[in-house]
């Protein structure tokens, strides 16, 4: 098993390298980015002479070096944990990013769990009662979740949360608990708030997972070994729980991999609507102000997150499915 993990870890490296190149290109992409605008502004104000600030700026971003050197320097710094300096916030990116990344992961994981909690039982139900009323009903509900734009649903739920349950609008905590140390009260408060993003992000993915689950199950239900088990006299519920779900759960574990990018995307937009202290709003601000190093760091970190998610799902898969482990 450890050999397997090691192999997978090594395989991540080229992937991450290519991602870093793409991100670096993104950073370089905007024509009127904030650094050139800053320089233009400084020059307009009479800074042709290379003052310390302008030199520091240019040095920080290696504006005079060839692209390859710039890239290498950037990635070296990145690997060493120096994510650069945000021009917009006049602060090191490091001080801005970590708390928010934590909340992003929290919301993404919560949404993933919510998606599963919803999609798995419904998927099973739909598969067992294929073409029944419930099957159609859940299909339509799932489609609704998929079809309502995330930001619209977030807004509507925010309104409902406020007007029905008195949940404070926006944010992940009530103001009085936001900075309090962790306690059961704070945790409950988090639960009171996190359900909106969880539902919004979760429902967007539920439809597809539900359908995957249903299809997988239908597939599995007709597999010979299920018939074997039926022939053994195993009862339907036990049958479904023991065999197909067990098998169909594998693709689920692999959803961690491919669902994560979706979840993080959904998280970004919902956080912007609900003003959650995650990466989404800051990323948007960074992009709007073309603070590309901040934006680039975010995208890079989010990508690393998904790659790690994929790794995790591979490891889980290997743990669950002996065939993969022995390959």
């Amino acid at each position, binding site marked *: 098993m450890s050999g397997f993990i090691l192999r997978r870890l090594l395989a991540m490296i*080229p*992937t991450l390298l*290519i*991602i870093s190149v*793409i991100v670096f290109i*993104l950073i370089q*992409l*905007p*024509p*009127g980015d904030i650094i050139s605008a800053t320089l233009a502004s400084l020059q307009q104000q009479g800074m042709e002479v290379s003052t310390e600030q302008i030199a520091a700026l240019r040095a920080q971003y290696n504006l005079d070096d060839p692209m390859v050197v710039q890239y290498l320097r950037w990635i070296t710094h990145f690997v060493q944990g120096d994510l650069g300096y945000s021009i917009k916030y006049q602060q090191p990116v490091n001080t801005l990013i970590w708390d928010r990344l934590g909340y992003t992961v929290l919301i993404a994981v919560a949404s993933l769990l919510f998606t599963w909690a919803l999609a798995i039982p419904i998927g099973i139900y739909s598969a067992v009662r294929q073409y029944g009323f419930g099957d159609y009903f859940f299909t*339509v509900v799932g*489609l*609704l979740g*998929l*079809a*309502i*734009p*995330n*930001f*619209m649903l977030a*807004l*509507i739920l925010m*309104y409902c949360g406020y007007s029905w349950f008195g949940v404070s*609008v926006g944010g992940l905590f009530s103001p009085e608990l936001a900075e309090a140390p962790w306690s059961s009260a704070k945790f409950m408060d988090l639960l009171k708030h996190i359900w909106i993003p969880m539902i919004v992000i979760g429902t967007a993915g539920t*439809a597809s997972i539900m*359908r*995957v689950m249903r*299809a*997988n199950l*239908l*597939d599995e239900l007709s597999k010979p070994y299920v018939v074997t088990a039926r022939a053994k006299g195993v009862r339907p519920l036990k049958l479904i729980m023991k065999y197909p779900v067990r098998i169909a759960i594998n*693709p689920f574990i*692999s*959803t961690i991999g*491919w669902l*994560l*990018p*979706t979840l*993080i*995307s*959904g998280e*970004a*937009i919902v956080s*912007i*609507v609900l003003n959650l202290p995650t990466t989404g709003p800051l*990323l*948007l601000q960074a*992009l*709007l102000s*073309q603070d590309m190093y901040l*934006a680039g760091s*975010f*995208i890079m970190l*989010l*990508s690393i997150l*998904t*790659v790690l998610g*994929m790794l995790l799902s591979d490891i889980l898969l290997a743990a669950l499915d002996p065939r993969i482990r022995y390959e």
Partner: protein
Amino acid sequence: MSSPQLLQDVSSARLTWLRFKRHRLALASGIFLVVIYLTAGFCEFFAVYEPNSRNPRAIYAPPQQVHFIDPVEGFQLRPFVYGYHLTINPDTWVREYTEDHSQKFPLQFFAPGEAYQFWNLFGASRHFVTVPDTGYLHLFGTDKLGRDIFSRVLYGARISLSLGLLGVALTIVLGVLIGGLAGYLGGMVDNVIQRTIEVLQSIPTLPLWMALSAALPPHWSPLGVYFGIIVILSFIQWTGLARVVRGRFLALREEDFVVAARLLGAGRLRIIFRHLLPSFMSHIITTATLAIPGMILAETALSFLGVGLRAPIVSWGVLLQQAQNFQVIILTPWLLIPGVFVVLVVIAFNLLGDGMRDAADPYGGSNSA
């Protein structure tokens, strides 16, 4: 177990159609989509006003009710609407609209109304429905500037729906080409392409889209931005399709008829396009159908974030961006009507795609994950 053999003479296309027809929902969705695409295509005719026309007498005015019964004349065959009577409530500052029964505007069908340039080709003024010159017709109400939501939804449909279609077309071209190359050539090429796809798929889509669209130069024309967004959306979407195509190619290239074609000296491209592609066209079409709603939703998301399409272009995303606040839900819910259309179209595409998949591939459609 036994499989039907007595109907071998039924062609597979007809069989697919028969199976498709059994999916009532898919069929209905298909019809709905055809109707809405046609409406969008001819939106100049179906809309009452141009998308940016304003009626300063109707700021945040609610939808007008279509009446058949006149208090004086009783039932009328020709439906009509009443004009608005506006008062600004001094306590609430709310613009309160009531029906002004002294102003009655009969609905006219196929009558001349606001002039427009049809597809920028020729001028015309006939509308599907309109009211006489002195009146106004706002079936879905108006927005903060007094623009007609009904007309804007139709014009927005043109942009959003065509964007989905064009985006998916580009996705197919990229996906089939790249996936086909990987699957057909194999070896190094395949490896490189495979790795690229993996990489692209592990970057969270929306942030990447946001970054790319934020990088679109600010001075680009609305049309430029429109195509820019299409390219950006397709930039990631192709990977999924490419994977599928590659897989099929790998499987197919060992099939007898391909080998035969190769032995007969057919060129690689010819083999790909004459022999390989048609063999899973139905799959591509289905995948494409299921990808369109994703594109439409992505556009609304980007526009909502302010990095997508911008006024004066009217898309559903642009319309919804203006509906993004509490005030809308509480005071002017009709601004959410474009959202209803987004939802309907997305659902319709999904049902249609599902139906098509089941029809084309009744036994193998389940491995889509």
